């Protein structure tokens, strides 16, 4: 009796929170129906599955946008498992945007279409990948976090291993899978320790922090370190970045465009919630790490990520490897607002992620196209390509300028916001490490310029050996122009974008401080 009374309350809560879960439900249905379509109509349905999935994604997009109307401020769903906040919706939109762009590109890209073992499975994976990403970014319960992480990891192992026929991608896939499994095992052990110390798995409310601060120093530090290991692997920070170059080089460009943006954004979302737990509602910026001050360690990791990412990119010959190291470097930049965790840094982190997703999608589309159209994978082979497609080359230069952070582009506003939030934090806390972080970030922008400049240098300044005749497909031009327009808009008139973002992040951060 006590149970069933209890049960009715719980069941009501679940049915109550279902409508907020529409996008994920839609994606799962699409996933399942896609499997059946692929199963029963194998022969003639070669092209049906991708369109169906795309339609599903559009539907999910519609529902996510609709969620803006429904969700005004933070709601806890499925009795504490998931927290749906306006900021979360922005992340979901990002994932859908990245998925759709990748979807369109994959239909066209040679590597995936000619996959020996059929290409339908690739598109089937997408919706469930979205579900995993959504869960990961929304969850605030350790179990859900672990589940989301696993879902995303397994989906990305499959996508990476999709081209397992060539030796290169097989090797990349195995490194990725094993390294991923190892880090999730370590994370699980960490979660178990945390559970032991605090007695609860849910990050909502302050019981987690209260119990944790009572626990002995070393074990809580070790537990947090292990959990952080899982997150840092996801956003490919320094100690866990070894797999990135090989994976990026081994997999086809559209996949990488997706893998380098969506999971990383989700990783930052969940890291944001995890670190969010450790803030006290007193002042706008006050991270109280239980017993052991992690801020300086994270600052050190961020500096190493930036510097190593940039410097190793300097020495790369292969363009994809270079872009891999550049995305590692950007992780370093994105970690900066996480450390200071003020209201302003929350908005600047989301802004930077939005711009980062746009930039990385654009750059990997271009790299992919260059590879398909001109077979240009090495830097040398980019010689004189500007002559053959002027419009795309100009787009590439604008995107590279944004990656470096030159003013008229979004990259600059992003970096400026991030720098000013760290500077603001320094003003309050006077922690010298924040200054070293700023100086390192600034120096890295200069180093970054060095290798980003190489591409236009080869494309524009040098002459091509042979004449290429391939025409650039129209759809690619359209997507590129949209992405570049987004980047330039973020640079020249970022007011609307940031107003929209900060309005939402403000609530989430606000609520925590209430």
């Amino acid at each position, binding site marked *: 009796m006590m149970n069933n009374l209890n049960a009715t309350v719980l069941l009501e809560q679940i049915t109550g929170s279902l409508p907020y879960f529409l996008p994920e439900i839609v994606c799962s249905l699409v996933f399942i129906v896609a499997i059946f379509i692929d199963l029963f109509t194998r022969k003639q349905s070669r092209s049906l599955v991708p369109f169906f999935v795309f339609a599903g994604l559009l539907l999910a997009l519609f529902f996510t946008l609709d969620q803006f109307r429904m969700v005004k401020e933070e709601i806890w769903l499925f009795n504490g498992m998931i927290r749906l906040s306006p900021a979360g919706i922005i992340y979901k939109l990002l994932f859908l945007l990245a998925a759709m762009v990748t979807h369109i590109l994959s239909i066209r890209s040679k590597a995936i279409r000619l996959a020996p073992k059929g290409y339908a499975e690739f598109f089937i994976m997408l919706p469930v990948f979205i579900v995993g990403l959504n869960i990961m970014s929304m969850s605030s319960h350790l179990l859900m976090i672990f589940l989301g992480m696993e879902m995303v990891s*397994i989906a990305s192992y499959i996508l990476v291993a999709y081209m*397992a026929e060539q030796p290169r991608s*097989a090797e990349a896939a*195995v490194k990725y899978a094993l390294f991923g*499994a*190892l880090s999730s*095992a370590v994370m699980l052990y960490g979660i*178990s320790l945390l*559970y032991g110390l605090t007695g609860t798995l849910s990050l909502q409310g302050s019981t987690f922090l209260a119990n944790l601060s009572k626990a002995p120093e070393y074990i809580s530090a070790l537990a947090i370190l292990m959990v952080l290991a899982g997150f840092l692997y996801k956003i490919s920070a320094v100690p866990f970045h070894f797999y990135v*170059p090989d994976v990026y080089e081994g997999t086809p460009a559209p996949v990488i465009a997706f893998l380098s943006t969506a999971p990383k954004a989700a990783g930052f979302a969940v890291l944001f919630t995890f670190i969010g737990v450790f803030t006290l509602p007193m002042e706008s910026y006050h991270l109280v790490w239980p017993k052991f001050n992690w801020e300086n360690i994270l600052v050190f990791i961020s500096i190493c990520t930036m510097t190593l990412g940039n410097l190793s990119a300097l020495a790369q010959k292969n363009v994809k490897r270079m872009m891999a190291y550049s995305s590692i470097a950007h992780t370093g930049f994105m970690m900066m607002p996480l450390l200071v965790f003020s209201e302003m840094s929350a908005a600047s982190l989301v802004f930077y992620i939005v711009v980062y997703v746009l930039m990385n999608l654009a750059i990997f589309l271009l790299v992919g196209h260059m590879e398909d159209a001109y077979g240009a994978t090495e830097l040398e082979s980019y010689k004189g390509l500007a002559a053959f497609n002027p419009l795309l080359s100009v787009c590439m230069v604008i995107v590279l300028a944004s990656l470096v952070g030159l003013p008229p582009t979004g990259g600059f506003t992003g970096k400026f916001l991030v720098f000013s939030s760290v500077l603001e934090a320094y003003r309050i806390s006077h922690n010298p490490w924040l200054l070293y972080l700023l100086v390192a970030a600034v120096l890295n922008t200069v180093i970054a310029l060095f290798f980003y400049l190489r591409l236009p240098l080869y494309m524009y300044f040098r002459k091509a050996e042979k004449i290429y005749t391939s025409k650039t497909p129209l759809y690619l031009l359209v997507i590129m122009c949209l992405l570049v327009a987004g980047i330039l808009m973020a640079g020249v008139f970022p007011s609307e974008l940031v107003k929209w973002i900060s309005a939402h992040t403000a609530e989430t951060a606000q609520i925590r401080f209430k």
Partner: protein
Amino acid sequence: MSTIPLEHFLLMSAALFCIGLYAVLTRRNLVIMLIGIELMVNAGVINLAAFGAFETSHHEGQMMGIFAIVLSAASVAVALAIILKVYQQFNTIEPGKIDTLRN
């Protein structure tokens, strides 16, 4: 049942975890590494169960344990599939030899 103190469980799971870690770090063979990872996951599960037992609401620990086992099963499946694929390409399962990328 009650006489078994919590520390013993934790020690055993810690030992298992370290054996798994040793396997991953030192052994060259992919399958052995996979096994090592599975041992570490098992250590985590034992930990969860043990803490669950001594917690007031012990169901959280068990729940997490169940899900952890299922998840690791899924990832083993995928990892093993990839390892077999690698085996077909390279005829070896020693990661050290797989370095076509890092030329």
